[in-house]
């Protein structure tokens, strides 16, 4: 198992290497450039050339790449052009915000999606099942941005139940050790701050979690339906086990493999959904940072940010693969 994990981590190196090249070329293929974005209406050919020279964008692409990679190996992603800040420091500072949001979204998606899919399967071809299937179809097709705006309008602006933007009330004082607000408020033993952090997480969490929820519910339903027809479930019932035991020990556990797979994949997609959600709710995480950077053609921020997300994506899928082996002993041997 350890060898497997190490091998996968080593595999990360060529993946990230290839990604860095693609990214490098892609950002430079975007129309316009950082200088144009920075100068806006004041742009003149001379000033653009001047800024490009200052950041080394006038050199050949290959030279630029080599200089860039030399720094990246020291985890230095350079300076942001528009924010004039150290990209690595900025990413590290904002990273917890994005992870906290993603985890809230995933918690919602898994916590609702698995029971929903399970109950739909157990009540196959009843109104509950049809309702769940229809709801999940709607769920996957709602754009995150749109859902975010609707939720904000209804629950924050009209009903005034929940905050509209940000991660904490502006007046709240909280010492940030980890930048995970939930963790920090627990460390500070501050119930008010904890509740505040959670309230801020609800709407963005739902906006971001709805698509994965719908997908998880659908996969769970399909997987449970298949397992329910398996012979060992009949054996479990023939043993006289209580229905709850049969469901928990035999049905759910055996349905988990495909569910865990989509959870892993969805976690990756979540990170891209976070870009939109964070914009709607002014979340101040990596998503918002990257979204802004794309508009400003802030090459170092885009490159660093996407690399960061890629690393998270690969690590999440590594965790999924390890979980696999725990769920299914047949994978463990081979």
């Amino acid at each position: 198992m350890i060898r497997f994990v190490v091998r996968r981590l080593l595999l990360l190196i060529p993946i990230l290497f290839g990604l860095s090249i693609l990214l490098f070329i892609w950002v430079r293929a975007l129309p316009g450039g950082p200088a144009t974005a920075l100068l806006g209406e004041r742009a003149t050919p001379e000033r653009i050339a001047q800024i490009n020279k200052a950041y080394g964008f006038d050199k050949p692409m290959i030279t630029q790449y080599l200089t860039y990679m030399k720094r990246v190996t020291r985890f230095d992603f350079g300076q942001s052009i528009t924010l004039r800040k150290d990209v690595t420091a900025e990413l590290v500072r904002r990273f917890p915000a994005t992870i906290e949001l993603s985890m809230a979204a995933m918690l919602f998606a898994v916590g609702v999606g698995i029971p929903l899919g399970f109950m739909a399967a157990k009540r196959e071809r009843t109104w509950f099942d049809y309702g769940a299937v229809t709801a999940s179809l709607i769920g996957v097709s709602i754009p995150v941005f749109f859902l975010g705006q609707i939720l904000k309008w209804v629950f924050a602006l009209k009903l005034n139940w929940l905050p509209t933007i940000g991660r904490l009330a502006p007046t709240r004082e909280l010492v940030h050790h980890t930048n995970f607000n939930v963790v920090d408020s627990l460390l500070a033993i501050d119930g008010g701050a904890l509740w505040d952090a959670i309230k801020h997480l609800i709407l963005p969490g739902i906006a971001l979690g709805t698509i994965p929820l719908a997908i998880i519910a659908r996969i769970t339903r399909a997987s449970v339906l298949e397992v329910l027809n398996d012979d060992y479930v009949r054996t479990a019932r023939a043993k006289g086990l209580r229905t709850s035991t049969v469901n928990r020990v035999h049905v759910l556990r055996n349905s988990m493999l495909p569910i865990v797979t989509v959870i892993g994949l969805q976690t990756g997609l979540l990170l891209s959904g976070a870009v939109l959600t964070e914009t709607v709710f002014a979340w101040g995480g990596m998503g918002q940072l990257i979204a802004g950077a794309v508009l400003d053609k802030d090459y170092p921020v885009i490159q660093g940010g996407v690399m960061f997300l890629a690393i998270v994506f690969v690590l999440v899928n590594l965790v999924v693969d390890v979980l696999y082996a725990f769920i299914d002993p047949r994978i463990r041997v081979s």
Partner: protein
Amino acid sequence: MSEPLLVVDDLHVTFKIHGGRAVRAVDGVSFAVRAGETVGIVGESGSGKSVTALAILGLLPSRGVTTSGSILLNGQQLLGASEHDMQDVRGRRAAMVFQDPMTSLNPVLTIGRQLTETITRHLGVKRDAARDRAAELLDRVGIPEPRQRLKNYPHQLSGGMRQRVMIAIALASDPALIIADEPTTALDVTIQAQVLELLREVVRESNTALVMITHDLGVIAGICESVNVMYSGRIVESNERHHLFASPRHHYTRGLLASVPRLDGAQGRLVPIPGSPSDVIAWSEGCAFAPRCPAVSDACRGQAPELVSSPEGGTLRCVQPAPVGMPVWSGR
């Protein structure tokens, strides 16, 4: 003779399938089993053997199925009993062994876990005691190094070993009744004999009642005291085993016997039953076997032949049965 342990009386099971059509999978089946007795149910695929077994244990799907008749286990009516009550019967008083030991065991749980969960469920013992009992059971069904095997997963065992595990699970709380649904069909021939021997031993040692479901007359010959022959949801002939083999009277029974190699090793030509089990007519229109029967006549159509007791013992559902004492092998 003692009172029968299991009495199935006029059992009907009807499936409502898509399009509102109804399939009478079991259509008025009656039989009884005493403690220590092994009763066979034999018939081709689709004759309703498994559905009968599942009905006894209340394992049929709850939706789209209607059942009627009576199933008494030690005097307790099982048909229509609540799921909760049936959970106390299943695995405790009546256990089942299924056909395919590869798919019938949960691939992601250890053998030990699958054994102990039955034991703790029914015997109310603690984990450690349950493990001891589990090892004992594996030992009893002839699995070497039982303590080690408890930690194994099903895929680490051979097919024969897995079926022994299934039998161990069935034996976990000393049930009075075991229903074995084609327990040897998925196994190699040599292993089949061993598993049958094991079941025979269990019945003898624990005075268990055994219902042996099979399409293999060889299995019947090896283990059953009496036999029910099923065709298209009904019993068409039943008798004590040696009578049935010596003097099969229903033409379907005779067809089955003619289509298997002779059990005493003597030479004879194997004659498969013509047609397939799907060439049936509804019992309401006559004998379901009529489309395939070599002795069919007009009398066989119009209404179903009644199941009647024959003076020579056993029961028979045929208007023109073969004469008494005419073995299949002297020609038919």
